[in-house]
């Protein structure tokens, strides 16, 4: 009995590979007896993730190689690779692949930039002045729940389908997100900080620039991150409707020529860029507002 106990406590820790794969308990989760309900005791399960991805790729290969699915619905590995090579060297419809991506990213960045440029001061004003709050609150509250895509017909009627129209749509999509983020940033300030600043002799302007604004930065950053995500979704949709360049237009035109492989490549690129934007914004946030959540 005593030997058994000894053996149990001497149990060898799992191999590093198994721990890395998240299949075995690491030295931290091993100590816990309550695991169901404790999110920090749930292992990453990375191994299962790898298996899932491999299985999906295998399914893709098998399904296309054995003709379970017609190429028009889903292309084979080979045709995607060939198409990617063609797109890379010749571009799509006389526009380089890289340019299709760049124009979409440029539209998003412009939209978010102008949205922030107008939205941040507007949100700050709404958090600081009852006149600004009263004037803009009905407008913001009314337009905010409207999906930006619902505005496309109106914007086409007003501005046509040129570059300005697209950036204006993205500007609207990001404007209200940024306004609400900045306003939330103002109301999140601990009143002690504002009182402290005034007792230290700060003027209203100094309180705004040195206390309210930096205090609102974490919220503003969240707004920027959300804006980027929403605008990326919106730009692709807007390009599906009316554009001759951009990843959205690329997959829409490719569809007309039944180039399913180009469509799939476009979708993957859209996914990768959306993911990259999210990661970059998080890194930027860590770097620029390191005090976030630490007051």
């Amino acid at each position: 009995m005593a030997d058994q106990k000894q053996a149990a406590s001497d149990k060898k820790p799992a191999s590093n590979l198994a721990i890395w794969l998240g299949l075995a308990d690491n030295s931290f989760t091993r100590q816990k007896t309550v695991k169901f309900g404790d999110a920090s005791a749930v292992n990453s399960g990375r191994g299962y993730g790898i298996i899932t991805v491999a299985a999906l790729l295998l399914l893709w290969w098998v399904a296309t190689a054995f003709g379970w699915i017609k190429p028009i619905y889903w292309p084979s590995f080979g045709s995607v690779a060939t198409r990617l090579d063609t797109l890379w060297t010749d571009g799509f419809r006389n526009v380089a692949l890289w340019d299709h991506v760049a124009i979409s990213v440029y539209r998003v960045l412009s939209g978010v930039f102008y949205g922030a440029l107008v939205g941040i001061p507007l949100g700050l004003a709404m958090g600081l002045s009852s006149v600004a709050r009263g004037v803009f609150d009905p407008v913001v509250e009314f337009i905010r729940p409207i999906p930006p895509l619902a505005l496309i017909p109106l914007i086409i009627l007003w501005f046509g389908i040129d570059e300005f129209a697209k950036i204006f749509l993205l500007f609207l999509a990001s404007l209200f997100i940024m306004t609400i983020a900045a306003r939330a940033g103002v109301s999140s300030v601990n009143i002690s900080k504002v009182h402290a600043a005034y007792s230290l002799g700060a003027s209203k302007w100094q309180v705004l620039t040195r206390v309210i604004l930096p205090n609102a930065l974490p919220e503003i950053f969240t707004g920027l991150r959300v804006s980027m995500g929403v605008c990326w979704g919106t730009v692709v949709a807007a390009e599906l409707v009316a554009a001759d360049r951009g990843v959205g237009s690329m997959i829409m035109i490719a569809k007309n020529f039944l180039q399913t492989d180009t469509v799939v490549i476009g979708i993957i690129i859209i996914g990768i860029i959306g993911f990259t934007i999210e990661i970059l914004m998080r890194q930027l946030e860590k770097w620029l507002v390191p005090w976030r959540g630490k007051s």
Partner: protein
Amino acid sequence: MKALNVDDVSMVFTVPGGADVHALENVNLKLEPGELVSVLGPSGCGKTTLLNIVAGFLSPTRGQVFLDDDPVTGPSAERGMVFQQGALFEWMSVEKNVAFGPSVAGKPRAEIKKTVDHLLSVVGLEDFATKPVYQLSGGMQQRVALARCLANDPEVILMDEPLGALDALTREKMQGLVLKLWKETGKTIILITHSVEEALFLGERLIVMAPRPGRIEKEYRLPFAEMGLKKSPRDVKAAPAFIKNREEILSMIWEMEEEIMGRQEAS
């Protein structure tokens, strides 16, 4: 240093759809330059309201506060404030926090640097000057708050439970620091606290406030702050006179709390 005069101040909060709350009624309090007065009382006695009025964050319903002959109409750099916690600017380093007052006043850089360096060494944080404040412990953060207030060289320092969020040991050490700073700078200080021991140990005068309506119930003149400058805090707090005062005040506050509870049950 200027004298502070709280002249017959009353504060009534009107609650929509409820009875008026008399947070303060006819409060009179005079502080001579360089005095350290501690204010004690059960919760709801209006001590924080009183401090906010003196700071200029609230305007009293009746009466006025004067600094020498000038009436208080709003916050100003003459009346510095040390808060319980959460009032540091976490987007700034320790030295930037301390430099805030002189820098918004537009003082020359060299002078600000000198003030900040001096004060950081006084509060023992010279090695932490460039650290962000959120990386500091609670006690260190309050030392930054003290230094930030002193950097402005205010006429009066208002402390709203500055040590309230600290653990017992850190708190005792910080009490020594407050005494030391008071002695070295000769500032006029009002200190609000929940702790009877702290109020007795730090105050030259101790004001006990009572609730409903908030008013000054009793005032003590105390020798312990002077003693604390020479002897160790524990010696002072173990002295029979200290213990006698402590028990007397504790039972007074206890009775007030009982009375409030009784009234709440009756209504």
